[in-house]
């Protein structure tokens, strides 16, 4: 390699322009491209990276959907009421749907009225929390971030407990109202996020400020929640399940309210996978490459927070999934969000389905908090991945 010599560039004039008081530097000749277009000398067996990515995307989608379906069928065939063969479960499911949920026999009734909505809610919540975590981690560029980082869970918990404690005295709404706690939770979650966003944006809107604002707002709402709990010890046993997370309250009346919007928003967020990749290079680079960073960050924060609020509203606070599933996907698949976003949706849904099965089945007739189960199942798996891949993983 030769050292480039300075006289190859011919600076013809260097002058102080009289008219404009500006330095002007001219070159006399134009240079041909120093690097001519290289002939494509790829190794013959060297596959295009884009083609490879597309292939992997298809494999993840197809294989993942098959695996998720298997988990789904296992989930509807196992319940406290008894384990039935998967084939029977499928046929009962098909027949009950064919009958539009009317005139069902006992088994069909079990599956259609109890296990099916529950499984759909588990799929939606697992997928929604995982992809929300994935989005937050990318935007905030911090591996310790989970979907509750912006105070959504604390705000939701605070209002859920509040209506649990005083709900009975609200006119037109008894404490037994099916939608009372969820609606309070959504409002609380979004209010908490709104305050976080306001504080963060007023302080410059950096990722660190979002974390700090989210943490303090979360603390404030948790503290108010503690005060509610200590003031009215007996009145809110109805909402205690909510604080630990559970699918026991899920029925057809609320399952579709979780399933449809959460799955829709999860799939919608995948549209911006490439923009999330850009964020991996830092906000300045993302901006330099033509992304409207402020708008993108705000809108994705709002999208992820709505997803989180919807997920926690009906089934309560389920931890671990949103933090760890995106990391597991990154470790296995690399940093490209076009692969890790669909993978997060699928893995999150599967983990939640299995966790719910264990929560229902481990100590019949008692039902365990599903949030604890996700962590108990997930931790060894994640620890194994960390040991295997942690050395080369910086996210």
């Amino acid at each position, binding site marked *: 390699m030769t050292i480039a010599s300075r006289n190859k560039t011919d600076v013809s004039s260097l002058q102080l322009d009289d008219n404009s008081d500006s330095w002007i530097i001219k070159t006399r000749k134009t240079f041909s491209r120093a690097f001519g277009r290289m002939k494509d000398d790829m190794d013959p067996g060297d596959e295009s990276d884009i083609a490879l990515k597309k292939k992997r995307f298809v494999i993840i989608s197809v294989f993942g959907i098959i695996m998720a379906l298997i988990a789904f069928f296992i989930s509807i065939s196992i319940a406290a009421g008894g384990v039935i063969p998967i084939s029977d479960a499928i046929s009962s499911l098909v027949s009950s749907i064919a009958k539009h949920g009317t005139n069902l026999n006992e088994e069909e009734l079990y599956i259609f009225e109890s296990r099916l909505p529950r499984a759909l809610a588990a799929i939606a919540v697992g997928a929604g929390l995982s992809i929300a975590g994935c989005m937050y981690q990318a935007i905030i560029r911090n591996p310790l971030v989970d979907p509750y980082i912006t105070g959504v869970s604390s705000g939701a918990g605070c209002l859920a407990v509040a209506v649990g404690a005083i709900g009975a005295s609200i006119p037109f709404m008894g404490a037994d109202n099916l939608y009372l706690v969820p609606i309070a939770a959504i409002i609380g979650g979004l209010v908490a996020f709104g305050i976080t966003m306001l504080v963060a944006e007023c302080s410059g809107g950096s990722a660190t400020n979002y974390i700090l604002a989210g943490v303090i707002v979360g603390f404030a709402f948790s503290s108010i929640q503690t005060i509610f709990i200590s003031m009215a010890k007996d009145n809110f046993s109805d909402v205690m399940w909510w604080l630990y997370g559970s699918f026991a309250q899920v029925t057809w009346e609320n399952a579709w309210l979780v399933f449809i919007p959460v799955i829709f928003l999860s799939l919608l967020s995948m549209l911006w996978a490439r923009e999330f990749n850009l964020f991996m290079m830092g906000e*300045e680079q993302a901006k330099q490459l*033509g992304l409207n960073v402020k708008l993108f960050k705000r809108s994705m924060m709002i999208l992820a927070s709505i997803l989180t609020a919807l997920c926690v509203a009906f089934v309560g606070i389920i931890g671990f999934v949103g933090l760890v599933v995106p990391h597991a996907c990154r470790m296995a698949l690399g940093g490209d969000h076009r692969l890790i976003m669909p993978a997060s949706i699928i893995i999150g849904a599967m983990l939640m389905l299995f966790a719910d099965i264990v929560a229902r089945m481990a100590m019949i007739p008692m039902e365990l908090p599903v949030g604890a189960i996700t962590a108990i199942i997930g931790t060894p798996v994640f620890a194994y991945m960390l040991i295997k891949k942690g050395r080369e993983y910086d996210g």
Partner: protein
Amino acid sequence: MMADHLLEIHGLNKKFGDFQALKDINLGLDKGLMIGLIGPNGCGKSTMMKCICKIHEMSSGSIYIDGEDISKKKPAEVSKLVATVPAESGLTFGLTVTDMVMLGRYPFVDKIWWENPEDETAVREALKTFGIYHLRKKQVSMLSSGERQRAMIAKAYVQEPKVMLVDEPTSHLDMKYKLQVMEYLKKMSYSDMTVIVAEHDISLMARYCDICIIMKKGEIQTIGDPKKVITEDLIRDVYEVDSRIGLDEDGEIYVLPKKYIDAEES
């Protein structure tokens, strides 16, 4: 209006609150130059670069690249005119070298998800040009500093910019990679691109740059052939350091810092 230069800066001012980071910068640069930006920390080198690539909005003034007023251009169009190699890149969350260099094609891709084959061709060409093709499947986090810097330059190169802004490219590199990176930048300046490098290693800059721009406190102090303008007096004035400047047998200058001058004593 000045003659049509590749990069024109007219009356550029940049204020951060009360602090005037850049004061009335006027500059016209032709294509195919390697420009060294020299000055002490906080003199406005990085700020000027960030104004040129529109990461910072300028307080007043105007910047034209290839005749286009960048203040009127959309960010995606600006990023086809000017590319940056940042001083440091943080976490990359498992992106591979190909993934990262491919992000440089972001402004060119009109589809939602997948890049086009020609983007891939451009990326592979760049990877080969900068000698990192064999690393293309490695994670960026696993690269050495020199390899990472070349990957960042490759990312900027696939943006096919007219102006390349490089902020302290050699600050973490050993001697060999310093020379290597400067040589790659020099080569790019031969291909009609104007490369602007901010760097503290003055000997290195004097050797590779066609023109040095010396900045102090947000203003351009001097511009010229590095061999002529870099003098012991200038170093004392700009950096407040006593130095010795010598010539090696090839006629290249080298700068030896000797002793800093304590402003409070003098």
